[in-house]
């Protein structure tokens, strides 16, 4: 069983999404900010997938992805953002993130997201 790193500053989003993923049998590691996520990696955590909110206090999601990728290149990323106008940037595409991995809040059904997470964790 691999770990999902969930980065979101909204506690409700973190807990409800975390609960759902756990119910799906996944190991969830939560972080309230980019810095916290980076710190967890530095501590030695090795998650397989990261679900990243883009608008974060301090370092934003974009920079966080780049930082995490630098530390753990095999880490897969999903983007979960409340901004409807957000679009993928080229440097993110360059590290393999596609439109398929872009989810916009609010999600009335979480199944498509968890399906993708599981697929990415399956070697």
């Amino acid at each position: 069983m691999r770990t999902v790193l969930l980065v979101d500053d909204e506690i409700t989003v973190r807990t409800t999404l975390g609960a759902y993923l756990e119910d799906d049998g996944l190991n969830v590691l939560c972080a309230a900010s980019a810095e916290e996520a980076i710190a967890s990696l530095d501590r030695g955590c090795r998650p397989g997938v990261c679900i990243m909110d883009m608008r974060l206090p301090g370092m934003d999601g974009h920079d966080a992805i780049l930082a995490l990728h630098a530390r753990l290149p095999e880490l897969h990323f999903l983007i979960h953002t409340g901004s409807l106008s957000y679009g993928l940037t080229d440097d993110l595409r360059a590290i393999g993130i596609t439109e398929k991995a872009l989810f916009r809040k609010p999600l009335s059904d979480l199944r498509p997201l968890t399906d993708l997470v599981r697929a990415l964790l399956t070697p």
Partner: protein
Amino acid sequence: MNRASQDKLIQRFRIVSRGAGMIVALVGGMVLIGWVGDITELTNILPDYVAMKANTAIAFLLSGIALWLLREDPPTTPLRTTMGRACALLALMLGLLTLAEYVSNIPLGIDEALFRDSQSAVQTSHPGRMAPNSAANFVLLGLALLLADFGHTRWFRPSEFLALTAFGIAMLPFTGYLYGVSSLVGYTHRYTAMAIHTSAAFLVLSTGILFMRTNRGWMQLVTSGGAAGLIMRLLFPLTVIMLVVLGWLRLAGEQAGFYTSESGTSVFVLIRIVLIGAIIAGVARVVHHLERVRDAAQEDLERANRGLEQRVQQRTREVEESNRALVEEVQHRARVEQALRESESRLQAILHGSPVAQFVIDRDHSVISWNRPLEEYTGIKAETMLGTSQQWRAFYPSERPCLADLLLEGEREQMRQWYGSKVTPSELVEGAYEATDFFPNLGDAGRWLYFMAAVIRGPEGDVIGAVETLRDITDRKRAEEARYLDEQRLDALLRLNQMTRASMKELTDFALEEAVRLTKSKIGYLAFMNEDESVLTMYSWSRSAMSQCTVQEKPIVYPVRDTGLWGEAVRQRRPVITNDYTVPSPLKKGFPEGHVPILRHMNIPVMDEGRIVAVAGVGNKDEPYDESDTRQLTLLMEGMWRILQRRRTEDAIRHMRAYLQNVVNSMPSVLVGIDLDGAVTHWNREAARLTGMEEADVKGRDFGDVLPQLQGQLEKVRAAIREGQALENERFGARNSEQDMRFYDLMVYPLIANGTQGAVLRLDDVTSRVQIEEMMVQTEKMMSVGGLAAGMAHEINNPLGGILQACQNIERRTSLDLAKNVEVAQALGIDLGLVHQYLRERGILEFVAGIRSDGARAARIVSDMLAFSRRSTSQMASVDLGEAVETVLRLAANDYDLKKQYDFRNIQIVRDFESNLPPVQCDKTKIEQVLLNLVKNAAQALATRDKTIAPVITVRLAREPRHLRIEVSDNGPGMDETIRRRAFEPFFTTKEVGVGTGLGLSVSYFIITRQHKGTMSVESGPGEGSRFIIRLPFRAEG
């Protein structure tokens, strides 16, 4: 024989001559070919005949060419003549050398120079040598050709005799061949015989040479038209042929043994006598006939002569008769003259004492009377004149006869010569002559004199002198002339005044030509003066001046200070006359080259209220210019100026009126002039366009009747007019004839200028401006919504996410499907099945589902609001709107809500699509979204209406010049004005809470106007249904 047929005859002789030359040359040529090719048929004709020798053939060729070259009479080119003579000389030389060989018996080597003759040649004394008679003939004919144009006398022409001799020589062997008598052919062992074609060719050649010149020697007789010619042409050939035939008959008869030589001789002598006798008789008959013709002609001539003689006698009698009458008349004259003389003597006495100017001359033209009045007229005293013949000095600059002198001599022709048609026989005095003439040398400016001259006879009736009386009629003449000129000038001005359609140039040209005519000038010009009288601008030249002038690039503008003599009229401000222009003057500045020569000149300043406005000039009158001319020119030109001024004023008024009319008509506003009673006085084009009524239809009618738009505003307008208060920018709405709502701005300006009372109504259709303003407001609102939504979206979406995810977790964690749930429940000792049952029965699961559904709706609202702020990232493509409409109608038919709640299947859908619509550049998805929204709205509206009327939705596609027009209309309850105006406003909805977001129409409006640069509007009224109108540009701009 007439000239033509004689010419034809001569022509025929010429043809024969030319033909002969060609035949002979041809024969020579053919035989030479025979020699070259050894063809006996050509050289010998028959094998036992002697051959035509090569030299003979050459000589024939030369002679033939010579004849052909020399045939022209007179010779055409010297070269031709020279060449012809050279050929003839060569032929002659050939004959001469051959003869020399025969005589001297020394071969000269010419015989076989070209061809070797056969040793067995028949009838040949020397091989290749031509016959001696042939040689002699070439000599004769060569000479004949050379001497063709030589001959001293009329009849003596050596050429003819030479040709005839050759003819004879050739005839002998020819008859020999004809008769078959070899002795005649002329062969002996010493001399070669003449070949048959040689003899024939000689006959042809000599005939040709004879016919060469038909107008000289004996040939002129042959070709003459009379009896002689006829006899020569008929009898000569006839006799020759007859004699040859007779000879042959005789010989043939004798050889056949019909008779002996002796008896034959006598028989043939008889036959010849008979035949010659017949010929002589024939000739006699011809001569007799001609004599009769001549006698008849002679008789005619004599008759004509007799007639002539009779006429001469007749004329002689007539002449004698008239002579007698003349004598009688002369005698009668003498008697009359006697009476006249007596009367004249009396007259003379009267004249001597008369106050009328007169002078008398005697028979020798010496002045014998020069009375006092004449002294006054002429300024010459009687003492200086009496006894002299210098009377002309009083009247003329050079010596010439006066009327009295001419009458004295009785030379009427002379009178005509000196006085022309001016002199006529006097009606008062018999035998006297009178005349009127102008004498430029008399007085200061010449005088008009009426003068009469009569002869004076002595008591015996003989002419002893003449008297001439003179009367000064200058004043009368001048007055007549002035009256005539005045009339002419007034007539010209009258016509000028009537030339209403003429241009200014045509007017001035006409006036100028009239000025030239009135002043009897040759040339004229007109120049206009500028305001400060410093520059003259040449405007017109008379036609004659233009035609005479050759100055290149005529100047048009003349500064006054640079002008020469012609500027004096300006400087002196009065007419200037220069009657002798040749006299040098310091004022003159000379002419450019090509200028019309000027002998006399007069010009005037044309004044208007003390200012010089133009300068008019004329020139080259035969007589000196005088006061009368300046008067006429001044009056004419001032008249012309007044007419021009009036025309200019009229033009300016007309122009200004047209300009103002144009301004009023070009205004995009309705402008209506009305009087105090409200009756229409002016009606501009825009007013006509708005109402469809022309000015003529509405003039005088009340403005309320012709402007139905103003119903409801009438009282306000009338009050404004009444009180003289302007009414400004009153905006009101009114329905037009198609029941469309239009908005107008109304202004009323009371007129305050003198003499006009009333007002001007200005009405502007501001409907589109109002609509634009409305739309601007909508857009503004939506833009603010968009901006707000963009900032808000994230903040709302995050909590919404939490809510929705929480709901999903609640649903899942209360379900029986998740193993963990069962596990936790067991650990707590709870039956999960009961918990689930409880949640369902208390409706808790439904509440959770409700939270999820409302959360989703809130998310959709946020997303819709964001549409206002999002930049268009849409895909523009060519879209067939018909297809798009069909897609939308299919989507609507399958829409769950529509099917369930609004019974979409019962709505009649009417498609009114114009055929062949072009595709539109647009974003298909967006447009479909808009259309679906409209169709849904229509269906929803129809659900709320009276159920008794069948619901209909009409979708109409129509082409406009640059737009595609899409209409979606329903026959539902419609909207009142308040709702209509807010229809596109965001969050404005008439639907129940939860049915609509209040954003559908405003998003549609945004898509159409902002993203597609189109327009969207709605027309509706309560109970009238609604019609949404979208206009999409065919090509998206920018």
